């Protein structure tokens, strides 16, 4: 133990300041502006529309609402089963690698891939949710099972069998945590399902986009309200006993969609995703072919991957730090230690709306209002994630025990509350970092030049080989950031929480 004679910043504060400085530097190279011709007019129309929802559209979107739920239920159920089985063998290195990859590729990227060969078939939407979610479930379920006590298992008589021991000791202990996490994920699943409409699945997002594109803000208002109502009332209509029947009827609630053309599936794997120089070559073994391949790779890396990656990192760095700032400003709104009951009610309402709105949707709205630049994406990411973490931190602050004669106001915030919750705050933020990067990449589909932009353009040019390469690169970046965040968490000895 070294004796500190002089004041110096703690490691946690030093890391925080490092992040802040990096984000400020990123601001200089980021493309931040409001480019729309008359943003105030557009925002005025939007607010006007929000105040006068058009209920006519309800008759049209009933079906979309059911489809949204059906995709979410089936996709999450499938993922829960798959993820659980993977969790049981999570100690294998290859399983950890595989699941890290499954969750590193964003749901919308999976959807874009499946759209190419399944077309607008329900399988596309289903797998786009089920695959990445099973990667998430595998990891979290394995962590939850790991945290259960091994003592009950030790008391079992010899020869009870592994499966029976698991069913009688580990799973019952983990059960409440497994259920609450799965429930939380179902909420995420509904959000994801709605967003899948933006790439053509017949869910809420589909109607949101078309209403938006036509500037019908009153319809947009109705759809958004419907969406909040759906998420906000979940705990009233989502009862445990309702889940099995809901999953059973869900498949019948999905349209058959267009038939799958199986030859497309075969062609996708045997031709479409094979790098162009190799696909076109007469001989795979000539040096010319491989030279071409190197040029091809070089070209994609220098004109698409690196610029996309740079923009993704710059944007996400700013978004991460803005998320942090917003979290620290927002959490007092729901903290019993800092705000009165009335204030907390309003705070909760604000945070529920903000965190129920998917980043993608928020970014889309802001992009319509402010025009294309990094700004809408940054603000969208910060609002969604800041209110999510703010809510969690606020809850944590409620558990603190303060002295009776403790300070009030800003002094209480800065001396009593903030120091006590700061490590939780950083832990949540670093958990969320990877999510922010993944979302940043995907927001490219909206026209911001992050990795998703180049993926989307490649798909529109029917160059799936390029798209797949870029998706792989973005997955690797996610895995890399996740690993780095985990190291940082353990270096700073941030307490372990289940992911948010």
């Amino acid at each position, binding site marked *: 133990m070294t004796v500190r004679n002089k004041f110096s910043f703690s490691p946690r504060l030093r890391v925080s300041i490092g992040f802040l400085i990096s984000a400020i530097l990123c601001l200089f190279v980021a493309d931040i502006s409001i480019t729309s011709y008359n943003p105030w007019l557009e925002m005025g129309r939007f607010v006007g529309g929000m105040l006068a929802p058009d209920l006519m559209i309800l008759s049209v979107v009933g079906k979309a609402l059911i489809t949204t739920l059906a995709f979410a239920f089936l996709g999450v159920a499938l993922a829960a089963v798959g993820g659980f089985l993977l969790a049981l063998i999570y100690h294998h290195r290859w399983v950890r690698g595989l699941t890290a990859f499954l969750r590193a590729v964003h749901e919308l990227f999976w959807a874009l891939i499946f759209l190419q060969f399944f077309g607008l078939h329900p399988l596309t939407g289903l797998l786009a949710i089920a695959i990445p979610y099973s990667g998430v479930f595998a990891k979290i379920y394995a962590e939850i099972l790991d945290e259960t*006590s091994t*003592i*009950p*298992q*030790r*008391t*079992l*008589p*010899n*020869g*009870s*069998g592994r*499966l*029976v*021991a698991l*069913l*009688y*000791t580990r799973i*019952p*202990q983990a*059960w*409440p945590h497994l259920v609450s996490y799965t429930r939380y994920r179902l909420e995420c699943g509904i959000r994801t399902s709605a967003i899948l409409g933006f790439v053509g699945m017949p869910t809420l997002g589909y109607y949101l986009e078309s209403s938006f594109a036509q500037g019908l803000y009153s319809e947009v208002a109705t759809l958004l309200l419907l969406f909040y109502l759906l998420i906000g009332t979940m705990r009233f209509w989502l009862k445990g006993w309702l889940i099995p029947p809901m999953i059973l009827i869900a498949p019948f609630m999905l349209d058959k969609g267009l038939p799958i053309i199986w030859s497309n599936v075969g062609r996708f794997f045997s031709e479409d995703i094979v790098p162009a120089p190799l696909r076109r070559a007469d001989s795979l073994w000539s040096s010319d072919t491989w030279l071409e391949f190197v040029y091809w790779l070089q070209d994609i890396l220098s004109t698409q991957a690196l610029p996309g990656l740079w923009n993704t990192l710059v944007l996400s760095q700013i978004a991460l730090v803005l998320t942090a700032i917003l979290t620290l400003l927002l959490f007092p709104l729901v903290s019993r230690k800092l705000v009165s009951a009335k204030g907390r009610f309003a705070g909760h309402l604000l945070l529920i709306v903000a965190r129920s709105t998917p980043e993608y949707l928020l970014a889309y709205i802001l992009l319509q209002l402010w025009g294309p630049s990094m700004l809408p994406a940054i603000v969208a990411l910060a609002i969604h994630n800041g209110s999510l973490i703010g809510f969690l931190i606020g809850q944590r602050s409620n558990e603190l025990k303060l002295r009776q004669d403790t300070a009030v106001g800003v002094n209480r915030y800065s001396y009593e509350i903030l120091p006590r919750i700061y490590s939780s705050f950083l832990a949540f933020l670093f958990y969320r970092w990877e999510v922010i990067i993944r979302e940043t990449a995907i927001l490219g589909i909206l026209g911001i030049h992050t990795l998703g932009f180049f993926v989307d353009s490649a798909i529109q040019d029917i160059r799936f080989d390029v798209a797949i390469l870029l998706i792989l690169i973005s997955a690797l970046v996610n895995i890399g950031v996740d690993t780095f965040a985990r190291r940082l968490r353990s270096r700073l000895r941030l307490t372990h929480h289940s992911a948010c």
Partner: protein
Amino acid sequence: MTAIHLTDISVSYDNRQVLGPLSLELKPGEIVVVIGKSGCGKSTLLSQIYDRLRHRAAWLPQDLGLVDTLSVYHNVYMAQLDQHSRWYNIINLIRPFSEQVDNVRPWLKRMSIDDKIWQSVDQLSGGQKQRVAIARALHQGAEILLADEPVSALDGPKADQVMACLTQQYSTALIALHDVDLALRYGQRIIGISDGRIMLDQPVQKLSQQSLLEFY
């Protein structure tokens, strides 16, 4: 049943010897009580012995090892998981077999908690939980009982009653206790542990309350 010889029992953490090396013999039909200050190595000793006797012993650890989210019935039934097929056990988890309920209930009656049979363990008090764990150990009916402070959360008469039950069901047992009276009443032989070593190993007849108190 043959006598049990345990040799070279030894545990160390970070090069620090916390237990042994020591040897121990258990004769069939002998109730041995282990006493010693907390932290002297009693629990480590019992745990080590359990590792070697797994297939013959019923294990009652200090932290009980109950599954909080399952019912009292299931926690007790668990002691006989090895007696039934895998599918029988899985079905019983979802819908208990009445014949098994009939097997479990008498033990709960003797522990006076049969009215709680369908409650989940997390709703019970500390003393009730301990009695569930004891019922489980009784239900197992192995050759030997290894129990670490089995009555720590029970008051005088209850503790007495439970010790009587345990020693009646298990004629061979190794039990760690911190109550000198109980040790003298139910033990046939007493082992005193200090700093991870056996400092006393005598039949009860040769011991008095005074001679044991110095171990605390």
